[in-house]
């Protein structure tokens, strides 16, 4: 029997009645076991991420600067993955950038009722950063067919009185309508540092 290739067909184990041995015929079959699991943690984000989250409250996006290469990493994690060194300097990057890649999600995600498919998840590179990060691209007039690599986007922030130490302060990114950025180099590492794509 080969693998079922049709995603709409449920797995065989769930597709029919549960069969049980004769010796257990009178018993109610056990269909699942629930193990209560709860662990509480008081996590601390670390020095670098703390700084990033505090900047977020001021509607600023900051990145770490690699001490060897000068590359800027957003979000900052306190280390340069290129040199393996601790970063000591942070810089502000723009709340504008371009789409390096994207996908369109057409199925709902459990627990995220705030996301209404179809929606666009994009890899957005802010101006001044060498790396991008995952972001929601949305907008009232956004035409999904119009979303493309190189599209210029700008962060849409929560209202000032709702800002907190959270990356969720950016509700989504919306197209600016500017001419597309040229994306010269798909290699994330080695991208020129002069403010992203031209």
């Amino acid at each position, binding site marked *: 029997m080969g693998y079922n290739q049709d995603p709409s067909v449920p797995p065989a184990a769930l597709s029919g009645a549960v069969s049980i041995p004769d010796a257990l015929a009178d018993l109610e079959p056990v269909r699942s*076991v629930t*193990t*209560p*699991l709860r*662990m*509480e*943690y*008081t*996590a*601390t*984000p*670390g*020095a*670098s*991420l*703390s700084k990033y989250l505090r900047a977020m409250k001021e509607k600023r996006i900051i990145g770490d600067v690699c001490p060897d290469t000068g590359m800027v990493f957003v979000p900052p*994690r*306190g*280390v*340069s*993955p*290129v*040199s*393996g*060194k*601790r970063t000591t300097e942070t810089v502000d990057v723009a709340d504008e950038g371009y789409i390096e890649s994207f996908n369109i999600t057409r199925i709902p995600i459990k627990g995220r009722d705030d996301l209404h498919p179809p929606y666009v998840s994009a890899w957005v590179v802010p101006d001044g950063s060498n790396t991008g990060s995952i972001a929601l691209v949305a907008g009232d007039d956004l035409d999904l067919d119009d979303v493309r690599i190189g599209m210029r986007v700008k962060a849409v922030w929560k209202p000032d009185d709702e800002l907190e130490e959270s990356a969720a302060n950016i509700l989504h990114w919306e197209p600016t309508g500017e001419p597309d950025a040229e994306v010269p180099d798909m290699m994330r*590492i080695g991208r020129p540092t002069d403010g992203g794509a031209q």
Partner: protein
Amino acid sequence: MRDVAVIASAQRQERSIDNESEVEFMVPLMQQVKESVGLTQQDIGFTCSGSSDFIAGQAFSFVMTIDGTGPVPPISESHVEMDGAWALYEAWVKLQMGEVDTALIYGYSKSSPGSLRDVLATQMDPYYVAPLWPDAFAIEALAARQMLEAGKVDHQRLAEIASRARTHAATNPHAVRRTEKSVEDIMGEAPMADPLRPSDISAAADGGCVVILAAGDRARELSDRPAWIRGIDHRTDAHTLGVRDLTQSMSARIAGEKAGVGDDKVDFAELYAPFTTSEYVLTEALGLGDDVVINPSGGALGAHTMMASGLIRIAEAAERISRGDGDRAVAHAGSGPVLQQNLVCVLEGE
């Protein structure tokens, strides 16, 4: 067998590291070790680490720690969900295969964000045992009770182990429990997980350890006195506690025999003993006599960084060999409830 040695190590242990993430506190250790032998990440043949996301309660935390090695251009790397000592074992095998001449190994954790004794309940059988949430202290107390009832140890002996560990830890700058305490005072402590008293139980810490292994002439070139791994073996007992005699450790005994512990005189031993009772079981299983100094660092009773404590035992033993404090040492790492898994390593100077 190819000659492989520990040539450098670094560690950091603190009661709680609040202001740094795991990668933030591991990077300086990795850099320090590499610089001490003049190697860059690109000179290192293989990198292997041990950690567990359950400890800090952070999903995929080890993925971020890889960034701390500086993996550009890409490196040969692996990870074990075990103490870093098992990462060292994997690297040792790779060195034995002759594929590489050097390896970087690290183990780390931050247990302070959660309750380690409770988090460890999640390593139990998830159907019959874990739903009852037996914490690590309670499980060890079952073993301790059996040892006491069988007359294998008494409270006096356990208090002596605890007191000696504290005396040793007092001289170790990396230990977090560094106050000396007399046997009498320890005997007077109120039990925490009856019959275990607070001093019978390890001192949880945040931190990590980084070690570099090198083979043959490369090791001699990079270190004045490498600590050669003359034998290394690890064994596991059954997971189900009910099928084991918790008053002894067959897996530690076999690992010790395979590693060649008894082949020559042992000057000192660094044993991963998160409880005084575990130290008793291990000294018996490994046949270590009264002439062997046990845990000169204070062991896990002085500082217990989960996922690194075993690797730290190897690092501590190797440091002492390299310094010339002794010629032959036993280092041990353990994992799982009541030392289900045991790794034994024999280190020698030249």
